[in-house]
């Protein structure tokens, strides 16, 4: 083992602890079976908007194997509806969302009746026997419909569909635009997407009336949040509930939320006093998982003669769906889509108006990147349009406008963004060199003469990571947003780390183990990780906003330092030296005279078995707990630049990806093997967003593409190899310096593809507007330009 590896940071160690997953020995939610467990299937609302006139469950109840048929009124007796109106979010409103529809259903796929049976198959059969007489109500589905003057109300409790209105920046930007050499203006549309975890959501709930305790196993990112959600909704003491997240087959933000159907499953267990399992099937996943990204926007940008940005003026309309999703609301995507516009640049005057609209569609919520991919796409398209207007190369346009820090004395940007330090210049320089940018431009110009339309797209991004209490607290959201580590030295010298961080495949737990092992210079196998269990881990967030290493890593590092300092006090007495003169090498204490012969195992045995032999008589703590949130920062900011090279077939409207590069600055990289594939995986999801993925609703609000054959996600054959580079600027917010990397790929990739496709089409004087950029939309853009030329 070389020196670098032995100290933990920077070693590309494989995840040996995850080997069981490649051997088929994972334990995902559907793999767990409890004695006397029952199964739930839901009857779901068939219309975008409806009212229940009558329910007849008699026939369903008679089917052998059916245990209970439960409607919204039954469930309301033990379970309150979600109230998602955080007091710190002004001009935001959401109707109460019951676990099961009580009278009015507000989107197709909303859970209406729970059928509980001996098996899922029987429960599904019985669902077919439930009769509901519906009155179909007028619906508002698209954002445009929802915002029109005569729009049908999405929910009977509200006259209009405006769920959020907020302005970021100044009221008046007219000076910047009046003095500009060029003003460019464009509109944008972003189709609805969903996270598509390969393992759908799932839950097992067991209310045990004997102990009055609720145990929940859930495929989820944030067990502590869910403990508090269930306590509140069911009126139970927090400490009577234990939430465990087993192996999770992908999450991506989709498994960050509290879902009505999962709450219903928990409430059913409370009603029946039996363990209950509910696994979402693929069609249910498409129609009821959190959706994301649906937005329309317009943006104006003013620049001076040299291409410096003088002002940005944007309007973003975001589609919320029927309810603001619980508990964090649907406003995060809308707010970040507006707030991060222009984030990488010195933008002069800034104004962005953001509005959220209720729609008779599934609620929207967090999905990898949360609004930032929208902001990045708008920004980078505007930069390209402005560069074209000013006759400046797109890379140069970016370089001359990059922001590196906040203006002197400023607490935040005009949009309210708190930025520590950016390294976009260095990232761009490394990227342009890696891709041989100038040569590619020469080649592109040559090929254009032959009628070959290649495009080069650049996308700079700033990403908010490690979002903590500094953001949630002022919004009035009672969320565990710190991350914690409880570190124990066992008598045999091995270490146990119980962490609040959860891992859905990112490898965070392996990297934490690697970090801890490095602090004591022991093999990673000497550290046992415990996570995803409110009964066994310290209080904290879990997984969202790229926080695992940035927050959880720092908590672990601090715990290591404290545990080690206590051990050094003991060792210093034994070795008769100063504690500050000690270090660990290969698990052994090294003092002023070199290796001491005192190992971590010796210290573990001494402190646990023979404390009376400690010279000071003071047993240091064998378990220490540290919790971390950056002081004075609501979040950390990472940054980077993406580039894609692609070819558009202007006759077919198809896009072939030729190459992809990213240079990312996520601060300290603990394990590059994990970090690089986080970036690649994020980029491929971003490519899916750009080219394929869209939840297509009919005009009447019916979800029309609810299979994986119809909702297309990226497969291996179409994806390029992706070249990853790093610039490393450790954050000063922590001793570790990690900033987070989970979303960086998804934030930048859609913008890079949008830019590259529009670059490829630029000789035809057209650009793409609506994401995803399907062959049809690309052809429509080309034909519209042709028609305009002929007129």
């Amino acid at each position, binding site marked *: 083992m070389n020196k670098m590896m032995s100290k933990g940071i920077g070693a590309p160690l494989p995840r040996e602890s*995850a*080997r069981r997953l490649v051997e*088929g020995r994972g334990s995902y939610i559907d793999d767990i079976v409890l004695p006397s467990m029952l199964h739930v299937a839901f009857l779901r609302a068939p219309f975008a908007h409806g009212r229940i006139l009558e329910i007849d469950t008699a026939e369903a109840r008679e089917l052998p194997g059916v245990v209970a048929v439960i409607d919204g009124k039954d469930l309301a007796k033990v379970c309150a509806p979600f109230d998602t109106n955080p007091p710190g979010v002004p001009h935001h409103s959401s109707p109460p969302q019951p676990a099961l529809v009580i009278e009015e259903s507000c989107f197709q796929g909303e859970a209406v009746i729970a059928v509980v049976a001996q098996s899922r198959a029987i429960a599904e059969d019985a669902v077919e026997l439930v009769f509901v007489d519906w009155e179909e109500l007028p619906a508002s589905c698209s954002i445009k419909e929802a915002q029109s003057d005569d729009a049908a109300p999405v929910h009977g409790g509200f006259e209009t569909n405006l769920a959020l209105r907020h302005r970021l920046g100044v009221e008046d930007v007219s000076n910047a635009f009046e003095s500009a050499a060029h003003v460019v203006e464009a509109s944008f549309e972003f189709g609805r997407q969903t996270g598509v975890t*390969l393992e759908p959501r799932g839950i097992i709930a067991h209310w045990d009336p004997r102990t009055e305790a609720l145990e929940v196993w859930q495929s989820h990112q944030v067990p502590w949040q869910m403990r508090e959600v269930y306590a509140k909704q069911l009126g139970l003491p927090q400490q009577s509930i234990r939430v465990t997240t087993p192996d999770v*087959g992908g999450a991506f933000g989709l498994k960050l939320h509290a879902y009505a159907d999962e709450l219903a499953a928990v409430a059913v267990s409370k009603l029946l006093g039996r363990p209950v399992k509910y696994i979402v099937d693929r069609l249910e996943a498409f129609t009821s998982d959190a959706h994301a990204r649906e937005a329309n926007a317009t943006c104006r940008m003013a620049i001076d003669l040299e291409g410096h940005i003088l002002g940005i003026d944007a309007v973003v309309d975001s589609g919320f769906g029927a309810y603001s999703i619980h508990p964090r609301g649907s406003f995060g995507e809308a707010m970040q889509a507006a707030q991060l516009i222009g984030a990488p640049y010195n933008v002069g005057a800034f104004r962005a108006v953001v509005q959220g609209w209720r729609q008779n569609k599934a609620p929207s919520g967090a999905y990898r990147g949360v609004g930032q991919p929208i902001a990045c796409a708008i920004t980078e398209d505007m930069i390209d349009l402005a560069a074209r207007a000013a006759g400046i190369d797109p890379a140069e346009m970016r370089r001359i406008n990059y922001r590196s820090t906040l203006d002197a004395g400023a607490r935040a940007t005009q949009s309210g963004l708190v930025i520590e330090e950016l390294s976009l210049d260095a990232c761009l320089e490394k990227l342009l060199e890696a891709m041989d940018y100038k040569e590619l431009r020469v080649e592109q110009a040559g090929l254009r003469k032959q009628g070959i339309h290649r495009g080069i797209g650049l996308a700079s991004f700033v990403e908010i990571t490690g979002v903590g209490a500094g953001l949630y607290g002022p919004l009035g959201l009672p969320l565990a947003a710190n991350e914690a580590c409880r570190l124990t030295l066992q008598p045999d010298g091995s270490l146990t780390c119980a962490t609040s961080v959860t891992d859905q495949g990112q*490898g965070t737990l392996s990297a934490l183990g690697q970090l801890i092992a490095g602090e004591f210079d022991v093999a990673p196998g000497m550290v046992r990780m415990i996570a995803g269990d409110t009964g066994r881990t310290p209080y904290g967030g879990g997984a969202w906003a790229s926080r695992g290493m940035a927050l959880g890593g720092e908590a672990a590092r601090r715990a290591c330092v404290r545990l080690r300092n206590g051990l050094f006090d003991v060792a210093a007495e034994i070795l008769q030296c100063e504690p500050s003169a000690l270090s660990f090498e290969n698990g052994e204490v090294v003092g002023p005279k070199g290796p001491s012969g005192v190992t971590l195992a010796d210290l573990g045995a001494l402190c646990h078995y023979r404390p009376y032999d400690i010279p000071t008589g003071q047993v240091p703590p064998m378990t220490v707990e540290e919790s971390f949130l950056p002081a004075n920062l609501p979040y950390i900011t990472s940054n980077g630049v993406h580039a894609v090279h692609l070819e558009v077939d202007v006759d077919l409207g198809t896009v072939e990806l030729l190459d992809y590069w990213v240079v990312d600055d996520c601060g300290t990289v603990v394990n590059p093997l*994990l970090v690089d*594939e986080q970036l690649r995986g994020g980029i*491929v999801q971003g490519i899916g967003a750009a080219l394929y993925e869209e939840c297509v609703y009919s005009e009447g609000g019916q979800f029309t593409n609810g299979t994986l054959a119809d909702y297309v996600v990226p497969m*291996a054959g179409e994806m390029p190899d992706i070249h990853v580079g790093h610039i490393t600027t450790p954050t000063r917010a922590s001793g570790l310096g990690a900033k987070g990397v989970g979303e960086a790929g998804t934030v930048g990739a859609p913008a890079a593809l949008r830019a590259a496709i529009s670059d490829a089409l630029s000789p035809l004087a057209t650009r793409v507007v609506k994401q995803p950029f399907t062959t049809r939309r690309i052809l429509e853009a080309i034909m519209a330009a042709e028609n305009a030329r002929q007129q």
Partner: protein
Amino acid sequence: MSDDTIRFTLNGRDVMVPATTRGHLGDLLRHEFGETGTHIGCEHGVCGACNVVMNGVVVRSCLTLAVQVAGAEIETIEHLGNDRDVAALQDAFVARNAFQCGYCTPGMIMTARELLNGNTTPCREEIRDAISGNLCRCTGYQAIVEAISDAAESLRETPSE
């Protein structure tokens, strides 16, 4: 054997189960035999997470009715660790970190094993083509391509006995 039971070989073991007409092979393996390494992702044959080997050929267990396996030989991820190709693939998947959540991995390895059985020197495009029926939502596929390539190489370097 009565009409309402079926017999087949599961991972080298003769087994007998009641023949239920509505269930698919994936559910049968998971619920009747507790072989939970085979994962259900879409239940309509697109994602490949449920791939198993039936009579030497990779099939979607979600598209295979349970009764179709009467008399067949079924192999699943749990017991293929002794298979030389599978062991090489598993080692390479770990070494390259060619998985994140692991939900797609057993099915992916089934497909990769079939590729390597028919092609000991697959190029990157052939690998990408072969696994294009297996959805991985976490990785960017690149590490998977590299892992399969590495496994092929290590199998070439250590000929079977």
